[in-house]
């Protein structure tokens, strides 16, 4: 994990800068109410474990959560705060 880039996180960073193969915990999403609620419906609620499946600089990344694969655009991934996953 790269050093903290977002204020207040415990070793926190944004999803966009996570390396492939990492397990992270979603700490929060910096977006409007409506968008956050929509993402929550897709399973992206704070506290959920995400595994970064693919990450190649530039394009969208792929994460695994709750048994599915989600493609997340870079702009969106920059707004998703994550922490290293520790234990279950």
């Amino acid at each position, binding site marked *: 994990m790269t050093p903290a880039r977002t204020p207040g996180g415990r070793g926190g960073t944004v999803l966009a800068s996570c390396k492939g193969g990492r397990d992270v915990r979603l700490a929060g999403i910096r977006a409007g109410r409506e968008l956050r*609620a929509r993402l929550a419906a897709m*399973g992206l609620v704070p506290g959920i474990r995400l595994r970064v499946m693919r990450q190649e600089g530039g394009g969208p990344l792929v994460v695994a959560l709750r048994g599915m694969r989600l493609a997340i655009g870079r702009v969106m991934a920059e707004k998703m705060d994550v922490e290293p996953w520790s234990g279950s």
Partner: protein
Amino acid sequence: MSRPIRVALAGNPNAGKTTLFNLLTGSRQHVANYPGVTVESREGTFRHRGHEIVVTDLPGTYSLTSYTEEERVARHHLADGAPDLVVQVIDASNLERNLYLAVQIVELGLPLVLAFNMSDLARARGLEFDLPRLSALLGIPIVPTVGHKGQGLAELSDAIVDAATAGHPPRGVPRHYGPDLEAAIGSVEAVLREHAPGAAAGRERWTALKLLENDGELRRRFAHPAVVAEVEARQKHLQSLGGDVPEMLIADRRYGFISGACTETVRTTAELRHTASDRIDAVLAHPLLGIPIFLAIMYAVFTVTFTLGGPPMEWLEAGIGALADLVRRAWPEGRADLLRSLIADGILGGVGGVVAFLPNIVLLFASISILEDSGYMARAAFLMDRLMQRVGLHGRSFIPLLVGFGCTVPAILATRTLESRRDRLTTMLVLPLMSCGARLPIYTLLIPAFFPEPARAPVLWLLYLTGIVLAVLGALALRRTLFRGEAEPLVMELPPYRAPTVRSVVTHMAERGWQYLRKAGTVILAISIVLWALTTFPRLPASAAAGLTEEGARSAAMAHSAAGRLGHGLEPVLRPMGFDWRAGTAMIGAFAAKEVFVAQLGIVFAVGNAEEDVESLRARLRKAYTPLQGLCMMLFMLVGTPCMATVAVTRRESGSWRWAIAQFGVLTAIAYALTTAVFQAGRLMGY
């Protein structure tokens, strides 16, 4: 006979809903489009144990909020359509997120049965489920099914009839949201009962919950000041207690309950493996290989659509042409000539114009359906997203835009794969700028007429490029004005790859073809007849045609007709672009289809058959116009006056004439300004 049982079929996108729907209802189904929306839902019927069962296949959704058109349609049907029973298809490999929807259906108070679709993927992942336990936790019946093998259908049908005829249908147990949220729900419920009695129709709890979730639609419906005040006070209170907005706290609670239920009932016997889908993606969505593979697949789609579709298109056109000839021959000249011409030229010509697109449309939708059902479409969007984001469009817009080089009409239909209406309309409105195949005959006539050999290919290239650049600018402009707002952020499920079924592909082909014929076809036919009338009336008196050759007479008749007069009348307007009345008249005819421009020019320049006599037509054009004027004609035909089929399909797909007319008007205005600028600048430079 008893009343039919009305079942709503709900589920997440890609959960296997459509497969189950097809298996249940067989061929007894039809598409029901909701007025004013682009989302469609199907209805089908079947009989079981003496009961008639009507199934509505709702659009796939993750939730019952009202953010997307799909959600609004699904929710409206569930909340206001009062089905007797909801069957939700659950994808077992994706249980948690699927149950999120189930929990909300239970909250609506609707009887629910879960069709637990045990996909091969779930099996491959080694998932084991304690279904009786899960059923008890949720308070709703669960029927295991294997969609693509048709297993569990009889059991599901039994469960539907049992649930619908039971004295107490299984409504499940609404979740308890913890003391803070429950207190807020309770007090909003009380205010609702007091100030809006009856308005929530026995769904006070659900309404209160949705109001706390800040649901736009319900907030508008329950705008009583007392209700608004209570909801806002409670929201503020909840936010201070929970540290987040209520909708997030509620989502968190729902997922909390679901995770708990899943921990108790799901066992994984094998470590989550690298699935087959991930292995396929390692190639198909590869950062370097992905795009060439995508382009190759697109090339294949193109070949199928336009090359394979070419011969049947010609047969259809030839068949209709033969029919028109038959009418002309069997119907002796001189008797009711007008009716003869109306049937042979107006109606049959129009029908020809309509059916000519049919092979392309059917084949394109076969391809799209294969790409969509297999799961590849999501990967294509994933690959193209980076590029398309810069234009302010979604990755999926790329496919319709590419198809637009073939023909705008199927391309506009293909925008259906876009989920957001903003993306869809933006793509649709700029689509006519992608230079379609019907403009090519215009270029192939005019370019050799005015440009010497080494310049021909660059001129053609420049025309295509101009279209692309204008489409990009147009999309950017629309994004900054009419469809402003945060660019739709890409968060998209990559469903596991699946083999598409023949049945689904055939169903799509038939449906799209039929929809096109019925909806767009009628408009195209009507416009064809109007255009026939414009180029026929008023008729040239026989005395005026005397002494002219056949070609001369046709040319004179055209000049005498409304279209010719319109061309003449428009001449002052057209002159800044460098056009005379003859070009104007040809353009009016070209509204029927862009390639008609060539035939019309042939008539006004009194050349027998434009296609056979290309060289003599080119020679006359060279005499009449400068190369600059020729270029301006091509530019105008590229940018302006989308053909009537485009107008009809845009009207149909956008749901209103407003967009179709705006598209036509704005594109024509841009074409006018651009062509005028080019012509005037060119003249100043001495061309």
